């Protein structure tokens, strides 16, 4: 309750942040609900190949004659989903890791931070590429077993590994905060009262960390979205005919050429993606200025 309230208080003060939050809400609802009212399906081909935006197709059509508005909204769905779940993965790992490291301290802390340092020096994106391509078929099999379509396997792997590459900063920051909070009288008092460590972590530390968690949440989402588009450009994105903003934009890169501009293929998905990233970043910055104790100090 508390973090959401904080969030609300901060955003309320700044009309610009309100606009950002509303914009994100709008994109999300269009992606979830609005997509059903475009009159087309995201994978329905037609003879209307590469049409300019018109009354029938507001965003134009792509090579296969699919409606770009529908595909952009569908891409929003996948991109937001990958980013959200990836962020959740990174958050869970980062917060747990950072809290344990900071709370236990001493030798354990030392080793855990060394591990973070080591992972920092790994070429994570290259490893993600190798991982995604080598595990794809196994995951497809697993998905089939639980009754999901197999072509979501890339997406599941992207959730997992993009999340796995992003938790390091979070872990470091959380650890730093926990180190400070640990010395606070209320924690010492709880310890003296004989409360269990888990309880202290959960009931006393976590609520105090929520502000910083929200801040880094809004900053991790854009970086995962960018990584996802980077992987799509390299051909390791979600499987066709699914689409994400990353795949749509990288499919459209060809349209920047001196012969003929298929501008709508780049401008609409790319513009929406950039605006979303901007809004998330503005929101994250605004929240950080207001909530992050390190900035506030």
């Amino acid at each position, binding site marked *: 309750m508390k973090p959401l309230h904080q969030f609300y208080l901060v955003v309320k003060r700044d009309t610009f942040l309100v606009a950002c939050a509303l914009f994100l809400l709008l994109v999300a609802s269009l992606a979830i609900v609005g997509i059903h009212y475009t009159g087309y399906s995201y*994978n*329905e*081909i037609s*003879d209307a*190949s590469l049409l300019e935006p018109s009354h029938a197709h507001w965003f134009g059509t792509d*090579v*296969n*004659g699919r409606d770009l508005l529908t595909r952009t909204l569908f891409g929003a769905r996948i991109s937001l989903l990958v980013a959200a779940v990836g962020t959740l993965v990174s958050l869970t790992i980062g917060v747990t890791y950072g809290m344990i490291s900071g709370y236990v301290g001493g030798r354990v802390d030392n080793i855990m931070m060394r591990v973070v340092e080591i992972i920092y020096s790994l070429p994570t994106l290259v490893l993600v590429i190798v991982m995604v*391509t080598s595990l794809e078929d196994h995951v497809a099999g697993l998905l089939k077993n639980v009754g999901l*379509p*197999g*072509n979501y396997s890339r997406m599941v792997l992207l959730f997992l590994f993009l999340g796995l590459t992003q938790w390091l900063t979070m872990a470091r920051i959380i650890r730093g905060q926990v180190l400070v909070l640990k010395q606070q009288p209320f924690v010492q008092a709880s310890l003296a009262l004989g409360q269990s460590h888990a309880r202290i972590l959960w009931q006393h530390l976590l609520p105090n960390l929520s502000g910083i968690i929200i801040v880094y949440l809004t900053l991790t989402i854009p970086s995962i979205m960018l990584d996802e588009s980077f992987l799509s450009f390299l*051909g*390791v994105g979600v*499987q*066709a*005919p699914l689409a994400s903003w990353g795949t749509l934009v990288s499919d459209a*890169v*060809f*349209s920047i*050429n*001196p*012969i*003929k501009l*298929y501008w709508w293929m780049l401008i609409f998905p790319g513009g929406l993606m950039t605006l979303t990233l901007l809004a998330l970043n503005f929101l994250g910055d605004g929240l950080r200025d207001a909530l992050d104790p390190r900035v506030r100090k």
Partner: protein
Amino acid sequence: MNTSLSSRRRRSLVLPVSIAGAAFLFIAFFYLFGGWTLSAPADFIICNGDEPQSLDPAIVTGQLEGRICLALFEGLTTRNAKGDIIPGMAESWIISPDGLTYTFTIRPEAKWSNGEKLTAYDFLNSWERTLNPTTASDYSYQLYYLVNGEAYGTGKLKDFSKVGVKAPDEHTLVVTLTHPTAYFLELTSFQTLCPVHLASVKKYGSNWIKPGKMISNGPYVLKEWRLNDYILVEANPNYWRPVPIHRIKILPTNNPTACFNLFYSKKTDLIIDKTSIPPSLVPDLRDKPYFHANPFGATSFIRFNVKRKPFDDVRVRKALALALDKKDIVEKITRAGEPVANNLVPPGSVGYTPPQGLSYNPDEARRLLAEAGYPGGKGFPDVKLLYAGRGSGPQVATEMQALWRRELGITSIELRGQEWKVYLNTQQLIDFDLCISAWVGDYNDPQTFLDMFITDGGNNLTGWGNRQYDEMLKTSESIPDPARRMNILHDMEKILVEDEVPIAPVYFYVGMSLYYPEKLGGFEPNFVDDHRWGEFYIPGKKP
């Protein structure tokens, strides 16, 4: 006061001096390590596709490597600009009446680039090297046409003197084949059968293909080679005829957009590889004066895995083939003017009439599918369409999936795009239901397409096999009469694309290149898509 003034003056110098120093260091660094070369300007610049894997003619398999190798090396025969076979290192040859023995006479003026005489022994020893299993040449099977060639190539025979190639003297090479091979003189113009300078191979080991070490016998010699940067070749003064263009620079840019931008800004004279042209731009390029397209011997087709349900049923295979609106695919997706393919062998083989094949017929397709037990696509099992996730691969696959849904009501076909290497592996293991494949002919004869599908053939990859088909291939190989042989090949292809349908042809590829006709001569469209650089000339500059 004084000190502060001088210190200010000193400080005012600090910035420019440090900038100049940094710039100097930077330029020095760039000169030393950045590969800033000051090589002589080239007369002609070619975008040749990706960086070549190797320039060893016995090893390379790709078209882009082959082109450079054939500029550096020359076989017994070569090709003119039209793609016809003409004498190369051999000035003439005699074919025995049974079509089994070829006697080549090496031209007396044939020389290596270092001035050494080139002899029949060079061919003999180079072919031994190509066939030798320790060389591990992927294309050594190009020499399996020779008597005992396969046995030596697979290591079953250790004595090379039993292989069907002999050099009675330094000007004569006698080759004996296992069966009459109409296209053998095409093979001898191919890079795999080119001679290499074995003394330098021995001396430098695997480094023999590097500039300064490589000795070659073709129209050009290798001057410089920087990985992913450029390759520079220069006319070989010891080549048996004059070479019109003196110095050619080859850019191994693998990014089509970068290639096209280079061409558009006139930084390169010729884009020779169709993979270097952005596919999405092709329709807009087609009416430009610098766009050149020619049909060439390659086909895109779908492989069915006949060992898996539901493709064990020929009616299902036929239904899917008939429902494929191929015109839609070539006009909407590939868009380079590819002809629709209803059969496998591309048009252009002399004396060959291909069968009709299955053309687009959705009503018949629906009927067959219903007959097979899936009316309106109901109950059709979950299957996956395998494709390579590069170029227009995903778009073609998307289109096919949608076409089958539209025409047949099948909704259970899932796309399975894989990276190139994984795709090849999956295809090789026949671990697919449906697979979008392609085949580029090795030579201009229907056989290069039809012999893939013999039972358990290494490139069959459908699980399909037919006794009668195998027998017919054997018969065709022993018939010296070309017309009768072509008839048998026609009947074979009929089995393949009309009766049994383990594959569904989609379209024939076209070769594409970009150049201004006023800036390049000696480049003519030909069916084998083989353009020898020794034939190139710059109009108005022809010596």
